């Protein structure tokens, strides 16, 4: 009995200690995260897919973030403080991305966060940032499922993906009946980035009388693409709208189409053809890129002045041409630009103030163009473009009008 009370006393002491430390922790966390005001570098944390299925995009994102950090520091940093980027590899795993953001916040004590690559990883990651009161500015989480969380700390600087194929749909439905395609195929990866785009396009084209002759979802993990692509070829669809997330998928479909001697009038992929040199080399050279389209909000030849500067810096550092610059670089760079403007406007790195500022309806600048957020973090100012590979360059073809190159329709034969 005596030993029990002794134990109880220790227990009470332990509980008191835990509660006291929890109280202290709660008090210290009641102020907004990232609000340190020393002259030490501003730490910005990001989880990126440096290995795994998204590694090409993840590494392009890292280049974009690094370019921005270099430029920002060359311009005196943020509020006179140097900027330091802390990147942790998530190996393309949503679970690892969540762990990484917890580490960045609790172990590295970063002041600000940048987003990861892809909607698949942004969805769970933004939840972590929200829990700790961090603003989550990102460039590759534009799927409707991400915005459906209605988290107030989410800000996507890029184009919301749902309606990204609208310029192509408008173009096809505006063609004279004699030229308008009559059939379309919609193979898509089982991914939150691709499926909304494909469903949207399928509904709109069906409403315009373009019949769907193939519509199947294939697993997101690497699979036997050849058989699926052969089925698409067998459908003889005049338009192929491929829901792809990476270069290997578009490469497999391209190879199978060439092998089956199948050349649709329109071949557009949601991602892959925007990966510049990586895409061109993987599909076997520029001959197999001719006429292939991709929707996006940015391309290497963008007339945006800041974009031109960024592209020149990129080429000076990594080589290549403007068409070879991955669009991920611009998306990442834009994240940095938006954060920089928010930090400057709020005169600090207090995340609660940054969130309020970004929701204020202010219009910001980026290499992708103007940025203005709605209540769920979508960029209302982003314009959907469709780009097409023509003679080895990725050019803007839609919407038609000033600055746009004429659409190559129907697309040229493979290898031309």
């Amino acid at each position: 009995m005596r030993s029990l009370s002794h134990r109880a006393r220790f227990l009470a002491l332990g509980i008191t200690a835990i509660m006291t430390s929890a109280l202290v922790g709660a008090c210290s966390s009641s102020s907004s995260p990232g609000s340190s005001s020393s002259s030490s570098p501003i730490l910005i944390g990001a989880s990126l897919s440096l290995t795994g299925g998204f590694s090409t995009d993840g590494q392009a994102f890292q280049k974009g973030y690094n370019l921005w950090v270099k430029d920002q520091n060359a311009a005196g940093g943020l509020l006179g403080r140097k900027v330091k980027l802390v990147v942790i590899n998530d190996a393309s795993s949503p679970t690892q991305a969540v762990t990484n953001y917890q580490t960045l916040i609790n172990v590295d004590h970063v002041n600000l966060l940048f987003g990861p690559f892809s909607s698949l990883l942004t969805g769970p990651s933004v939840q972590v940032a929200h829990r700790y009161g961090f603003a989550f500015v990102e460039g590759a989480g534009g799927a409707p499922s991400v915005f459906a969380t209605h988290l107030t700390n989410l800000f996507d600087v890029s184009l919301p993906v749902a309606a990204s194929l609208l310029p192509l749909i408008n173009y096809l439905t505006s063609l004279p009946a004699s030229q308008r395609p009559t059939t379309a195929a919609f193979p898509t990866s089982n991914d939150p980035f691709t499926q909304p785009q494909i469903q949207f396009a399928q509904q709109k084209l069906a409403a315009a009388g373009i019949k769907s002759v193939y519509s199947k979802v294939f697993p997101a993990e690497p699979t036997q693409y050849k058989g699926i692509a052969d089925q698409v070829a067998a459908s003889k669809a005049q338009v192929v709208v491929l829901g792809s997330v990476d270069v290997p998928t578009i490469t497999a479909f391209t190879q199978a189409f060439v092998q089956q001697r199948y050349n649709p009038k329109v071949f557009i992929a949601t991602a892959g053809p925007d990966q510049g040199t990586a895409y061109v080399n993987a599909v076997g050279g520029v001959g197999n890129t001719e006429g292939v389209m991709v929707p996006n909000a940015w391309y290497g030849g963008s007339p945006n002045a800041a974009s031109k500067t960024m592209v020149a810096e990129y080429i000076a550092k990594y080589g290549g041409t403007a068409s070879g610059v991955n669009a991920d670089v611009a998306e990442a760079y834009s994240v940095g630009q938006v954060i920089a403007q928010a930090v400057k406007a709020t005169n600090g790195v207090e995340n609660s103030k940054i969130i309020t500022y970004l929701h204020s309806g202010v219009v910001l600048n980026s290499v992708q163009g103007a940025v203005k957020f709605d209540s769920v973090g979508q960029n209302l100012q982003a314009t959907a473009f469709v780009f097409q590979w023509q003679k080895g360059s990725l050019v803007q073809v839609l919407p038609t009008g000033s600055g746009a190159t004429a659409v190559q329709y129907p697309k040229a034969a493979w290898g031309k």
Partner: protein
Amino acid sequence: MASFAQAIVDGILGGAVYALMAAGLTLIFGVLDIINIAQGILVVLAAYLSYALSVHLHLDPLLGLFVTVPVMFLLGVFIEWAFIRRLRGRERTAMSLLVSYAVAVIIEGVLYQTFGSTPVTIQAWYATSTLHVFGFFLPYIYLIGFGLAVVALAAIYLMLYRTTFGRTVRATVQDKVAARLIGINVDRIAALTFGIGVAVTAAGGMVFGMTNAFNPDSGYDLISRLLSIVILGGLGSIGGALAAAMFMVTAEEVVNIWQPTWATAVYYVVLVIVLVVRPAGLFGKQATRAQ
């Protein structure tokens, strides 16, 4: 009906390519009782070797096999000597999983450092050219893969069952101590067998690299498929690997016609059913060793 026929053709040709990649895995297990988790990354390494020869020395990938096969053989001998030979005792097979995984991680790291993460493919005229037969467009690269698979698997079979070396290998498999007593250098046999298993992978890697965009990460996607093929075929069975690979890819291609998201799942369901009925796989190890 045309779709079904196309799926069968794709399955047989694609299955042969997987058999080519899995042949080394099943040979190494059959002879050495080693589960080589590094097989996937070795396929990718072989693909990168073919890629490098093609891009930097403009060597045709098929001719490049005269370089990559010996290089992979020597690498296999080295891996056996440096890592596998050290494993002793009853836990040897289980430990081989960990050791070969470590080898895979090392090779993956070297590939990332050397080639980066950007996916690449090996280019040659026969990568996209096709033969038009009975209404089917048969890609030359798959026909080449099919031919290489048949030749490689037949060569392994003949080596094991029609040569003096094969007799010493099988004697070692049956009883290492007895093999030593009659003068067989068991360590040498193990090194050569591991080397041959890895050398066969050179051909599989070349075909894989011409039919897929790959990067150092691709090994992870491959190993689960290759393991399931050799398990279904029967660990250690050369013919079983060919049959299982063709079955796996054909099943996937047929299911792809209706619902691609179920294709892989259907294969694994069949795998589980087969293992319940025949725990040693279609052509179990004991049966193979009794040949």
